[in-house]
């Protein structure tokens, strides 16, 4: 336990020599998949619902817009659905807390494996500036796509996939179709 705490706190240590955490390779994908599947199964059994991600961002956006322009959000059914009836805070939401957990869990796993490093993930033939712009543009597109599809890779593809939901399977196939269709035109970013 103490070594785990040491490893996690070492991310914030100025003197990296004190606790050296070697970068470990990623885990076996099939074992990781079984682990992820058991987490999803636990969500089904305990809560009666699956996992998600984009829903939490939608709540944040709705709360943000509501702070700036409350009349505007009340007349828009998209925002008002995320804001609820006003009896409790919209931030007291299952997905918001789940995504906070994802943030913590990702950080814990990364620290233990020596993979928490400030940096930019990019291919060898693209500048950092361009990569950051692409990340923003790709994120925007996925925000629009996920809202149209009523969920993202977590809420639809993964959760709906395991529940054999028709719409989720159609959606999942289309993600791969769209991805492979666009891959050729974006090869300079990654290869």
């Amino acid at each position, binding site marked *: 336990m103490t070594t785990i705490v040491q490893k996690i706190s070492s991310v914030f240590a100025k003197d990296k020599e004190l606790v050296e955490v070697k970068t470990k390779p990623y885990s076996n994908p099939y074992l990781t998949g079984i682990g992820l599947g058991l987490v999803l199964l636990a969500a*089904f059994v305990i809560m009666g619902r699956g996992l998600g991600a984009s829903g939490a961002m939608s709540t944040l956006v709705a709360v943000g817009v509501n702070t700036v322009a409350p009349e505007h959000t009340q007349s828009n059914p998209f925002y008002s659905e995320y804001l609820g009836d006003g009896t409790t805070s919209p931030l007291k939401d299952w997905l918001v807390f789940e995504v906070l957990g994802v943030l913590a869990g990702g950080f814990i796993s990364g620290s233990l494996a020596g993979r928490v490093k400030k940096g*930019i993930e*990019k291919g060898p033939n693209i500048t950092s500036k361009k990569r950051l712009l692409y990340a923003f543009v*790709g*994120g925007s597109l996925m925000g*629009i796509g996920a809202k149209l*599809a*009523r969920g993202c890779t977590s809420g639809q593809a993964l959760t709906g996939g395991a529940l054999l939901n028709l719409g989720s399977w159609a959606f999942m196939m289309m993600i791969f179709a769209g991805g492979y269709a666009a891959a050729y035109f974006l090869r300079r970013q990654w290869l």
Partner: protein
Amino acid sequence: MNAPFYKFGLFNSDVSLIIAFIIGIAFGFALERGGFGSARILAAQFYFSNMRVLKVMFTAIVTAMLGLYYLSVIGFVDLSLIYISETYILPQVVGGLILGVGFVIGGYCPGTSVVSFATGKLDGLMYILGLMFGIFIFGEVFPYITDFYYSTNMGSVTLPQYFHLSYGLVVFLVVIMAVGAFALAEWSEKKFAHRNPENQL
């Protein structure tokens, strides 16, 4: 004992938020272990050189699907109490295509971008900001696309219901399909090993 526990009133909604946080930790941990905090590994899925996305996702789907199937067969879980979102086939197909294109441009999906940001990646943060901007744009145009958004509603429908097959048979077919996909993934990773970002780390 009957599941889902929450639906049978074993705990209240405040406790459910603590459970959400714990499940989220496990979710984020698994994503990071699988290499999903790295945009290069995620994007390599679309260049056939690193198939972790497919392997982890399909293994997870098969695991949860089989678990749920057997737990419902022995009567432990009441399937009718598990939330299945309604199918709106046309907007979901279009949304999936947009998501796929966005995936190759941005390098993440919403869940993995959170893990990427948690491990210090600036592009992960930019992606999250973009994601929120996209949702804002969607919210602003929502009043104009409401008809399309609610079009082609098929209700809550599963593959067994739609194809008139038994639940067990569809579960079996998905397992077979996953095994086939894994074999193809292993083959393609060998063929394109020279450009697998994981081998260059």
